[in-house]
């Protein structure tokens, strides 16, 4: 499984694609709201087309960059990394774990993300209406093609981000593990983006996000543990030399002084028992666990718990302060009502505009 499906790559693609599709969906919704077909069919169509052209152009340029980066890595870089494979795998697994962890937190607040983008887009469009002193060809051009530039820049940015993440994370992974993961990631991202656009049930979306984030953190915890394991394995290979590879999964393949458990079966490295490879990619299973890998796994979860507890505490504090503020000057029901409204009705551009105005 690690050979055909790189889980970290999947999540990177998923997340970047989701963000892009949210932006696109916000834009489309905005157009729908303000320039529905009933207003001016031609203009609406042109603008929608602009959006899709922007997305297309962004994807196209991303693909070029992606091909360049991957080509460089797999021709020039690959052999240099092979010599210290365990170090690279270890470092990139930890890196991937950190990236996924940070992304995961954002994914959990994807509705916030939506609001954020709504604000941004509204700002851009607000500017169009407002008479600012700066004039010129450039400005009028960017105004005219705002519906192209916005998705284009977004896709480009998210895409390059994804390519760099994947290049970093995927360096330790075989090339065969990429395509499926990338396709699934993009597909899933687009699908969720579409669901958000369609304004499906917010609560079930949130549950979906929680579940997928849990899953994501399981993967990240496994990666973190695996990264530490790889670094320890590198140290062990340095001590014990070539014999380690010879030993397969038997005695000698691990440092007995650092072993917490070792079972001769169920090695994720063993291609024939594929199930354990999946177990390894998803949850960081090792048939030969070390103190480092076990402790790092537990520490990771500790850090996650503390991190989210802190975020939650901060939010409640901010909320409480806000509430206090709100209660003091206007009615306390307003804020809650607004929140509830947002969560129930899905994309409500009006509220976004209102927020911007505020």
């Amino acid at each position, binding site marked *: 499984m690690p050979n055909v499906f790189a889980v970290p790559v999947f999540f990177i693609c998923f997340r970047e694609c989701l963000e892009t599709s949210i932006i696109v969906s916000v834009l489309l919704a905005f157009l729908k709201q303000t320039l529905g077909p009933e207003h001016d069919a031609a203009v609406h169509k042109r603008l929608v087309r602009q959006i899709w052209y922007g997305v297309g152009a962004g994807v196209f340029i991303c693909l070029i960059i992606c091909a360049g980066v991957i080509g460089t890595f797999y021709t020039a870089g690959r052999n240099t990394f092979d010599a210290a494979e365990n170090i690279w795998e270890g470092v990139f697994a930890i890196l991937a774990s950190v990236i996924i962890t940070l992304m995961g937190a954002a994914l959990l607040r994807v509705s916030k993300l939506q609001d954020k983008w709504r604000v941004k887009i509204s700002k851009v469009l607000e500017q169009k209406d407002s008479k600012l002193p700066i004039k010129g060809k450039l400005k009028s051009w960017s105004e005219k093609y705002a519906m192209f530039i916005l998705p284009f820049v977004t896709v480009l940015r998210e895409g390059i981000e994804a390519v760099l993440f994947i290049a970093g994370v995927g360096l330790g992974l075989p090339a065969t593990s990429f395509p499926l993961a990338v396709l699934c990631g993009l597909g899933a991202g687009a699908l969720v983006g579409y669901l958000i656009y369609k304004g499906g049930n917010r609560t079930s979306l*949130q*549950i979906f996000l*929680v579940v997928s984030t849990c899953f994501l953190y399981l993967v990240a915890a496994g990666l973190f543990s695996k990264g530490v394991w790889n670094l320890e394995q590198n140290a062990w290979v340095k001590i014990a030399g070539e014999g380690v590879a*010879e030993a397969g999964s038997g005695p000698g*393949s691990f440092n007995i002084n650092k072993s917490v*458990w070792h079972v001769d079966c169920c090695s994720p490295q063993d291609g024939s028992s594929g199930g354990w490879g999946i177990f390894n990619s998803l949850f960081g299973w090792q048939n030969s666990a070390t103190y480092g890998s076990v402790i790092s796994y537990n520490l990771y979860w500790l850090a996650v718990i503390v991190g*989210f507890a802190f975020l939650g505490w901060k939010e409640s504090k901010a909320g409480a302060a806000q509430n206090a503020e709100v209660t003091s000057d206007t009615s306390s029901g307003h804020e809650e009502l*607004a929140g509830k409204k947002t969560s129930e009705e899905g994309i409500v551009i009006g509220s976004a505009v209102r927020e911007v105005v505020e």
Partner: protein
Amino acid sequence: MAMSLSNFLLPIALLASIVHCATVTHDFDIAWTYANPDGQQTRSVIGINGQWPVPPIVVTKGDQVIVNVKNSLGNESTSLHFHGLYMNRTTHMDGPTAVTQCGILPGSSFTYNFTVDQPGTYWYHSHERGQYPDGLRGAFIVHDPEDPHKDLYDEEIVITLSDWYHDLMHNLLASFISFANPSGAEPVPQAALFNDTQNLTVKIEPGKTYLFRMVNMGAFAAQYVWFEGHTMRIVEVDGVVLITAKNDTSTNFAFVGSMDQDLFDAVPDSLNPNVTGWLVYDDTKEKPAPKEIDAFEPFDDFDLVPYDKEELLDRVDRSITLDLKMDNLNDGANYAFFNDVTYVSPKVPTLYTVLSTGSNATNPIIYGSNTNSFVLAQNEVVEIILNNDDPGKHPFHLHGHAFQVVTRSADDAGFYDPSNTTTPSATPMRRDTILVRPNGHTVLRFRSDNPGVWLFHCHIEWHVSSGLIATIIEAPLAIQAQLSDRIPEDHWKACQDGDVPTKGNAAGNTFDLLDLRGENTSPGKIPAGFTARGIVALVFSCLAAFAGMGVIGWYGLKPVKNKTS
């Protein structure tokens, strides 16, 4: 660098009809000195009387040999084993530490006193753990006034072969038996030696026939040997080779020893596995470089027939099967096993257990659970079936006997199957050391007519240290009859000096001989699956993951607070 062989060319008494019964006495002061035999590095070596290489012991059949050993090493105890000698009625002079004696501590003295009643080419070496490759090994030559081949040759030359390490065995052993060497890769020697030197020259006179006595006294490497331009005829194993000299003095001839690299784990590019010597007919002529050879074509010693044509022992009374394997124990190091037991020296030297346990001495249990002990009755035909479940070659050596080699399989033949084997020779070759092939087997037979405590072990010194040893306790009651009250005082004193118990079972228990509590044992087996530690770790990890996901759920399902102001 080249060293004359004259040191080793010893006057040969060819006084055939005179029966020799002389006493040969050697005083050996064993101490560290320095040497640089391969011209690459000067290192500490164990010398005798300040000399290294150590002197050969040369005796005549029937001689009494007395070796007074003084250990002046300062930091290591020692012992001497006389390899290949039957030590009939003197098993206590055989030499292995913790088997037939206690190690001779630094500053102590010890006397070996035995009669040699067998002709041939042998050697002597330390039988203290892993010690002899530091230099304490030399040739032991027994001349035979009645040698049936004596008319076939004019002169005699002793050639010793050896591998050579630049580091001390103490250090090499520490890294060999270590968690950091889980595959049990043996240290690869740095050089090969002829007579403890390289580029050896051997003065040869045209027209003469020479008896070459060859001994490989290395720690690890087998060697292929060939002489250019001469044919050899084997006239004795272990070790006497006959070559017929050329009548041509126009050139000199190279002879080469080449280490068998099959067992070397990683061969450094800088290693020269070969050692060259020259048969020098004319000092003024150049010594040609040895020719390259494409492949080794070794002579198969299995086909040899002993001169006395002793018949095959075909009625086997006692059969012992030894399955050899290499594996790791829970200290992470690699060990060697016979029947899943790796040898660990008993607290009480096995011979002393024999002598102190009366009629219980016939019970193999009292010799300990880590000694691979087998008790033989007297005058039985004993068969050892050795199955090599390891992809390496192992030269097995039995103390106290020369055994008939009944069967020796090719590589990868697997375990011995009596129903599927070739008919043995009617007059099989007898050896004291036999090479068993990778993943093959061999079957050996001998008559238990020599009461004593004899080790059966791989003669690769690394494998001796990693436990590839079995203890044969042959006719223990006869040993008691021969040796009770006849162990010399200095032998007991060696034990007293080292606080080694000399009575009781392997654990030193004199009351209940079957109670082995406190015996020396090997590290334990590696647990096959989860231990308590592993289960706790796994449970904690799962709990941590669930707690973490719980927090994520709590945070994720909290209502999102939009910023409003």
